[in-house]
């Protein structure tokens, strides 16, 4: 009897998991084949895990397609060799150091993701699901007992700001009023982060159980799951989870006969980064433009519809059932003195093993990137990592030994953020990156505060000028001056942190700014106004791939006629499409 789990998160689906699943079902009609969430190794999708109960062996295969899956089928039927290029890991492999993607991790929030079918409440229950709620009611834990357990765990909000979760709950519990709200913030707007997507898609009941526990602790009877509309699978799976949990009595009126009632509605976010901010998110739930307002009053006192409201991040809530079940002290065993537990990171960019990794706090950034992430994808040297998205900052390679800890990361000028980790190699221009983030924050600024609304536009204009080779030396001073003003004169986190990418790139990569301004040079070959593409006659084999790829017809030459290929610099738009297709490194970017 085989047990086969097929990874069907958004990334697995994008890689074609549906056809692989269908094929396996046809080939093994009598075995147990399930569709599960993302195991985190998005770079190897489609991934399947196989448990063979007759031989007691386990295998994990990756990079599957509808074609090569046949090799796996043959092997599992005993008709073929183990396909060595598709095997990721197996129980035969004693040397675990070869496979460090999972061994360097400690999965608490993600403990079920990739293990169970997200839409099956029974599978969640089999894996100790809803045991935390049962424990609370069976043991007669009071809301204060729950809050104290969370206090013992020392968990801080995983959305980025890192506010102690227990303290938030205590405020809301103490706030007067019969109607209170608990909101799950699944508006993961940070471009480059997908932890919450994976958790909502892959283990919705875990987040749901966290919400029920939080609601019980603060005395809320109504809840909202605010999920980005860009995550349709997360919305769907969470919706199914709500219906199933109600049917089993974990949600709704008089939960498990305790007298406590809690109901949840899903609200889909409509694409506004600022709605990650608490008061903006509340405005959005109320049906208004998502604009933040002045605090105090804090949402814990006066939030949604004027009632006490707690907003917790998806990952925070995903840790709660585990904390209640295993004890806060157990959770606090992981991590550093001030940052306890684990943190999920989304690895992307120029890293070999892109995906999700949950590591104990205190792990070094270098270990995450090199041991789990496998280092550079392109072979080019790594240059920096961007943490915390548009609100965060760059940490240069020389500081990769910084440990993952709220304070240690803040000391570099970056922030922990929600967990987006974009790794960059030498082909990333740091000025262009700063421009990219300012373009983003400028677009996403709600417009309420003048410095954020206008200041970010001015910063973007200056950065664009520098990237176009029209920068002046005083631009750097203006950028620094604007940065400090935007930081101090903005109401919410968006404006207060918007200058961070500029400040950190200026701090660690000032020479790149100076090169752009003084020498009109972009060392990464990214800024189009400062580069030219030239075909090198010697390595060029006249294959003509570049000519067919060029969208503007700027390349001339006769196929197979050596040394005949040339780029017309008048028409060339420096898009780089030719470089992408050239197999012989025959195009120079300078």
């Amino acid at each position: 009897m085989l047990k086969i789990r097929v990874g069907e998160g958004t990334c697995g689906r994008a890689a074609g998991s549906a056809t692989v699943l269908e094929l396996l079902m046809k080939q093994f009609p009598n075995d147990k084949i399930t569709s599960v969430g993302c195991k985190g190794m998005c770079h190897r999708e489609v991934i399947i895990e196989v448990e063979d109960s007759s031989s007691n062996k386990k295998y994990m295969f990756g990079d599957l397609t509808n074609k090569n899956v046949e090799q796996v089928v043959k092997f599992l039927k005993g008709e073929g060799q183990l396909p060595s290029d598709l095997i990721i890991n197996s129980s035969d492999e004693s040397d675990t150091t070869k496979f460090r993607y999972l061994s360097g991790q400690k999965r608490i929030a993600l403990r079920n993701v990739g293990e169970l079918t997200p839409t099956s409440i029974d599978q969640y229950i089999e894996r100790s699901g809803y045991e935390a709620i049962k424990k609370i009611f069976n043991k007669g834990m009071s809301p204060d007992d729950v809050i104290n357990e969370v206090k013992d765990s020392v968990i801080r909000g995983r959305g980025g700001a890192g506010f102690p979760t227990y303290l938030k709950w205590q405020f809301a519990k103490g706030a007067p009023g019969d109607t209170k709200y608990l909101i799950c913030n699944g508006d993961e707007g940070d471009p480059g982060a997908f932890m919450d997507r994976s958790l909502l898609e892959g283990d919705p009941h875990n987040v749901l159980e966290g919400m029920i526990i939080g609601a019980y602790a603060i005395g809320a009877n109504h809840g909202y799951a605010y999920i980005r509309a860009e995550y349709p699978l997360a919305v769907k799976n969470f919706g199914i989870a709500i219906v199933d949990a109600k049917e089993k009595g974990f949600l709704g009126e008089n939960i498990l006969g305790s007298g406590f009632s809690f109901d949840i509605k899903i609200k889909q976010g409509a694409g506004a980064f600022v709605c990650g901010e608490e008061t903006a998110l509340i405005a959005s739930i109320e049906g208004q433009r998502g604009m933040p307002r002045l605090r105090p009053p804090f949402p814990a006192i006066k939030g949604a519809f004027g009632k006490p409201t707690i907003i917790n991040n998806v990952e925070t809530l995903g840790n709660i059932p585990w904390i209640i079940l295993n004890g806060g002290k157990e959770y606090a065993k992981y991590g550093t003195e001030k940052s306890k537990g684990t943190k999920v990171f989304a690895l992307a960019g120029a890293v070999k093993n892109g995906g999700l990794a949950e590591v104990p706090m205190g792990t070094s950034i270098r270990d995450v990137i090199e041991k789990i992430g496998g280092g550079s994808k392109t072979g080019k040297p790594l240059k920096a990592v961007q943490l915390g998205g548009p609100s965060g900052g760059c940490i240069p390679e020389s500081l990769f030994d910084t440990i993952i800890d709220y304070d240690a990361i803040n000391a570099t000028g970056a922030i922990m953020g929600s967990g987006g980790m974009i790794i960059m190699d030498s082909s990333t221009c740091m000025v262009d990156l700063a421009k990219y983030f300012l373009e983003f924050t400028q677009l996403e600024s709600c417009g309420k505060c003048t410095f954020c609304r206008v200041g970010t536009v001015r910063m973007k204009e200056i950065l664009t000028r520098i990237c176009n080779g029209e920068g002046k030396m005083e631009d750097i001073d203006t950028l620094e001056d604007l940065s400090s003003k935007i930081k101090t004169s903005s109401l919410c986190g968006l404006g207060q942190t918007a200058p961070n990418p500029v400040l950190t790139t200026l701090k660690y990569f000032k020479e790149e700014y100076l090169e752009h301004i003084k020498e009109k040079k972009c060392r990464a070959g990214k800024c189009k106004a400062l580069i030219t593409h030239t075909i090198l006659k010697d390595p060029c084999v006249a294959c003509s791939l570049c000519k067919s790829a060029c969208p503007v017809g700027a390349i001339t030459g006769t196929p197979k006629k050596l040394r005949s290929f040339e780029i017309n610099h008048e028409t060339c738009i420096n898009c780089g499409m030719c470089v992408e297709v050239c197999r012989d490194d025959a195009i120079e970017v300078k």
Partner: protein
Amino acid sequence: MSKSLEANVDESKVLGWIKKIGTEPSASVPLLQEIQSEYGYLPREAMEIVIKNSAITSSQLYGVATFYSQFRLKPIGRHLIKVCHGTACHVRGADRLDTSVEHALGLKKGQDTALDGSYTVEQVACVGCCSLAPVMVVDDKVLGDLTGATAKRALKAHAKENDEKLQN
């Protein structure tokens, strides 16, 4: 933009959504989402039906429709291409996908829809598939690990499947 792309709004459908979702101000976002998922954009007529039949004022509804990036006030082509411009996609060459798609559709600067109404292209912030960067989403299918050339190939295949023609 050709006139033919504009939707014929079915009043009873809009009234049905209002009945299902609600008439209070907090229903504004879900109502607009429902309208857009049906018509691909927010037809003025549909918004007027909402205003007439709910507690939502025209200033609130229009304010919300123009605040959130999900909402479109102009009709779109028969198929929608979203080119992801999240950070990971940006550093891995999302601009080449733009160039490639614009070229394939024959778009001029400032244009987002092919003249024959086949495809509309838009740049989106992040679709959350960062480890497959650069990514684009054609209708609801996520395509990852693209280059300028493979993006064009994927688009060609999509056009063939859906009986559409590309300019280039």
